[in-house]
Structure formats: C-alpha cells, structure tokens
C-alpha cells in the first residue's frame, strides 16, 4: 500500500466524519427539530472521500440530493452544515438552502441539488471554465443510478466528449433509485456500459472499498488533468437508509440491509484491512471515532441554540443588484 499512516488515518477520519454527520442527523431528525427532506449517505462514504482525495479547492464538484457526504469530503465545514440543516443564520448558506442546497463555492462545490441529474451539465460547465482558462483543473459530477436515466446526464456526457472537457461522471450505483431497483430502471446490462456509446472511457469499481475508489480515481483524475477528455466511473455501493428519512423502505428486505451493513460497510472494510496490514491500531481508529462523536454532540447543541436568520434575510440575496 502506497498510502502513509497519516493519509490513511486522515481518509478514515473523513469517512467517519460523514458517517457521524449522517447518523447524528438520522438520530436528531426523530426529535422533529430538523425541518425538510433529508437523504442520507451512510454506506457510500468511500466514494466521496476516495474521489475528493484527488481534488483541490480549485477543482469542482456538483453533488445531488444525497449530498452531505460530498460536501464534507470536498472540505465544507460540518459544523456550519449542521447549522444549515437546522435553518440557522450561521449555516453555510445562511439557512436559506437547507440539506438539498448546500454549496460552498470557495471549496469548488457547486452544491447539492434537488433536481435529479442536474449536476451533470453544471459540472460539465465548470470543466468548460477550466478549458477556456487553460487550467488543468477537473470537475466531478456525483450522481446516482436513478439520475443515470435522466436526459441531463446523456446530454452532458455527449457535450463533454465532443468538447473534450475534463469532467468525471461518477455514478454511485446503490442499487435503488428512490424505491425502484436498478435492474428494472436501467435497460443496459450495466450503467458503465453506456459510456462507450458516447465515446467515453469507463471503469466499474467497488464503491464499498475505499482503496478501489482511491486507486481508480488516481488514474481517472490524471487522465482528465492531462487534457484527454471526460471519464465515466460506475461505483457499486450501498445505501444503508431509505431514499429519504422516514422512508419505510417496504421495497427492500431487512436481510439485504443487514447484510450490507455487515459485509459491505466501507468503514469496517477499511479498518480491518489497515489493522490487518499493521498500519494502524484499533485504538487509533477508536480514538478518531470518539473525537467525532463528541464533536457532533457539540455541533447539534450549538445549532439548537443558534440564532435564526434575521427577518430581513427573506428578501436579501435574490439579486446582486436590482
């Protein structure tokens, strides 16, 4: 393994950070204090972290409705994200975006998005910016198997190929779009197979294994930075919770979810491998876990006490000038 201990613990911390974010929100949502729709990323953390490990603040991502993980991985402050979910003034978007619209342009995040598939042309546009400005930065569109059937994605893929843009179409295939299975919704044998029809290279990887994601993305990002045009990645991953918080998930079997948590949990897999290879200890991982548990307790307590947006904020920031 080429990663240093420091890197390994850092990537684990980022994945664990996302997990704790989502588990905290899952727990706190039951108190009724978090308004709106929530779509949790638990089980998919290796993807956001394995991809963003290769990106800088000058590279862009476009996320989706299940976006908390992507935002944390790209470097947004989780404390301010929790504030945002509680609708508070200090939230990352001043409490005016909420879960589905967390963006952080200073970190190269074009935002989570409530419109399925919309990130694909937006990320393609950010890639166009890099090309026009003559930079070697790239952009990544995170989207799911559900979005893979949106016309947005097809049009963006074609544009990216013909204009040779440095954009990575990263499909997190968790097997179910809302409540409909991928085997029903996708006509092709695999989503990645579609890329060839657009003239785009593609890889299919294990999105529950951080190292599979990290290694694949090292090559894919280098391909795009070198000006070779777009790339398609399909990562097979798992979704531990429902489409949205409160989803009774009658379309899934309990055994399927239990099995995924037991055998396909990217955090457990990461820990076992790293401990097995003697690169870090259980105590070191546990210490990261307990630090994050404490941190999130603090974020939630603080958010619950934080100030609401000023009434005037209602009509502010619609335009820059008007």
């Amino acid at each position, binding site marked *: 393994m080429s990663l240093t201990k420091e890197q390994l613990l850092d990537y684990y911390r980022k994945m664990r950070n996302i997990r704790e974010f989502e588990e905290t929100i899952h727990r706190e949502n039951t108190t009724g204090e978090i308004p709106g729709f929530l779509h949790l990323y638990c089980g998919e953390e290796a993807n956001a972290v394995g991809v963003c490990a290769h990106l800088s603040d000058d590279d*862009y991502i*476009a996320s989706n409705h299940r976006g908390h993980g992507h935002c944390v991985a790209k470097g947004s402050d989780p404390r301010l994200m929790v504030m945002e979910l509680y609708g508070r003034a200090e*939230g*990352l*978007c*001043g*409490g*005016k*975006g909420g879960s589905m*619209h967390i*963006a*952080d*342009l*200073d970190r190269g995040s*074009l*935002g989570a*998005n*409530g*419109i399925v598939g*919309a990130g*694909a*042309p*937006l*990320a*393609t*546009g*950010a*890639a*166009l*910016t890099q*090309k*026009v*400005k003559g930079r070697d930065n790239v*952009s990544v569109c995170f989207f799911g198997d559900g979005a893979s059937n949106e*016309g*947005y994605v*097809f*049009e*963006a893929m*074609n*544009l990216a190929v*013909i*204009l040779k843009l440095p954009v990575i179409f990263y499909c997190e295939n968790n097997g179910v779009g809302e409540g409909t299975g991928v085997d029903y919704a996708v006509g092709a044998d695999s989503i990645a197979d579609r890329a060839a029809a657009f003239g785009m290279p593609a890889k299919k990887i294990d999105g529950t294994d951080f190292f599979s994601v990290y290694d694949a993305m090292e090559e894919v990002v280098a391909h795009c930075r070198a000006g070779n045009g777009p790339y398609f990645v399909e990562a097979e991953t798992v979704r531990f919770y429902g489409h949205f918080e409160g989803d009774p998930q009658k379309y899934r079997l309990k055994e399927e979810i239990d099995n995924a948590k037991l055998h396909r949990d990217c955090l457990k897999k990461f820990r076992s491998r790293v401990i097995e290879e003697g690169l870090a200890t259980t105590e070191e991982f546990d210490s990261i876990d307990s630090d994050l548990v404490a941190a999130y307790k603090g974020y939630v307590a603080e958010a619950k006490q934080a100030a609401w947006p000023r009434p005037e904020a209602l009509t*502010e*920031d*619609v*335009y*820059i*000038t*008007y």
Partner: protein
Amino acid sequence: MAEKSIRTAIGEAMRAEMRRDNNVILIGEDVAGGQGCEGELDAYGGVLGISKGLIQEFGADRIIDTPISEMGYMGMAVGAAASGLRPIAELMFSDFYGCCWDMLYNQAAKFRYMFGGKAVTPLTVRTMIGAGASASAQHSQSPYHVFTSLPGMKCVVPSNAYDAKGLLIQAIQDDDPVIFCEHKALYDLPLAASEVPDESYTVPFGEANFVREGEDVTIVALGLMVHLAAGAADELAKQGIGCDVIDPRTTSPLDEEAILESVQNTGRLIVVDESSARCGFAHDIAALVASQAFDCLKAPIKLVTPPHTPVPFSSPLEQAWIPSGERVAAAVLEVTMGLDAKTAMDTVMAAKSAAA
C-alpha cells in the same frame, strides 16, 4: 453617428464585450455553424448571421457550437457562469425554453439565494421572441412574462438598436443571470434602427424610456409593441389626444415609478403586450396600477393582448392574433371618449380609410 439595425447593434455588443473580457464566451446551436462539415466554417454565424465572424476572431474555444441539446448546453453555460466565465448562451427560439427551463428556473436564478448570497452566476441568455413570420405555434411566442415571474432572473426586451446594444452590454457585464429577448420582426425593421455609437456604452436596467409624451393616456409597451403604440400615438395626436408611450425596456427589474407617475398625470392606462392573454406582462402592469394608483384612474384599464390561443400559422389568422396599432388606437378612444369597443374600432377604421 451611423444609423444601425438591431441586428448590427447586437453583433457589435457581443464583439466588444468579447474583446474586453476573455471570460465572455458564446455558446449555442450554429453560433458559427459548419463544424464537422466539409463546407465552410461559420456558415451560419447564428441562424440570423448575428455572430458571423466571431469564431475567426475569438476561436472555437470561445465561440462554441453545440449539438441540438438545449438542456445540456444551457446547463453547461450555467455551470461555466457559476465557476468564473461570463457565457452568452443563445437559445435560438424562446419557445425552446421548455427544453432547458430547469437550468434557468431551478438552477441559475436560485443559486445566489439558496447559497446564502455567495454565488455569482453572470449568464446572459439571448433568445428570439415574437410572431409575424408564419413561424407558427412553436417558434413565435414571447414568453417574457414567464421569465419576469422568476425571482433571481432579470429580463430585457429591447425595442430599438441603441437600447439593444447598451442593454446587451449591461447584461453581459451584469453579475446576475439575464434573459435578453430579441423580437424577430425588429432585427431589420427600419423603425427600430437608430443612431448607435461605435464605442461601448451601457443602458441601465430598470429605467423606462418615454417614447412619446402626452397628457391623456399612458400606453405601456415592449419590443415590437412599442412601435405599434408609437404609431397609434402619432395618429391620435393629430386628433388632439396625447399619449405617454412608455417602453420599460426591462421587465425585471421594472421601472414602476415611471409607469405610476405617468398614470398619475393621465389617469388612464393601456398595456400592449404580445406575451399572453392570461397572467401576462399586461396583467402585471394592470395590477401594479390598480393596486397603487387606483385613485388616479378616470377609466378602466385596457389590455391589448393576443387571444388566449396558440400562435396560428396562416397569415390572416396570425395578423389577427398579433396586437395591432388599430386595436391600440381603439383602446385609447374607449378610455378617453367613453366609446364602446365596437364604435371605437369603427371610428379608427373609418379614420384609416379616410386617410388612405
């Protein structure tokens, strides 16, 4: 100073802004044309030839021909705008907004607000509006009322060449997303041509232009309708009826003050609007005046709009669909002389045939 058409004015504005700022790019279908063909590059230069020659000066990296893929390229333009460029995206016909509306409606217009005031999305969408070319129901509409209803989006509807150049330069330099609506009957209309300086200048948004001034009636009109209203006003002036003809130039932001002040003087309002018979621009202006200047009104507000139908193909039907100068004049007679609609129109037509 040379007299120029709107077509020339718009081309000049784009070229000047692209020279001034390397971040300005043009994206759309056949904005050059000929890519991937064996014949000439820049064969179209935009379907109306407005962007002709730009690809030679600025190259294919900045003059970007796209596939027929409105949702994709509009989204790409929005993403480029949010990440540091100032794209001009050409939506050939405004009727096609249905193909890419999400990128404007749910994305570009909302970024700044949703993201807590941190996003900057300097996108300009240039698009053709207007009936009169027998282009029928899917290539003739003027949906600026829809664009106007969208918070976060600005909407421009120029009526003459001077304004078109200054407003387009303002749109490109503006940090908010703007939809710039070009009436297809105005590109080469001599009435819309005007003295246009060769150098760059801006016309500010939200400042109406008083095209005619008069004491008796306020007529608010946009785009091609400005010329119908001005023509009617000139005829009515001969009969001693004076009209304020106001061209708001931008529907969002809107110069409410100019309209309200004028109605306070005249006490009468007519709105000439090609957008829609229901929930249109005319209805918005009528509601503004009815709610804020009701006490000044001496007569009911009159709206001159198309009927509530799609735009028909056949010329006589299409001509009947488009608001006419005669309908504007008749509306003025209704509100100034208290004539009923039929008598007012008969009077206008009689005057017209007498003049002929």
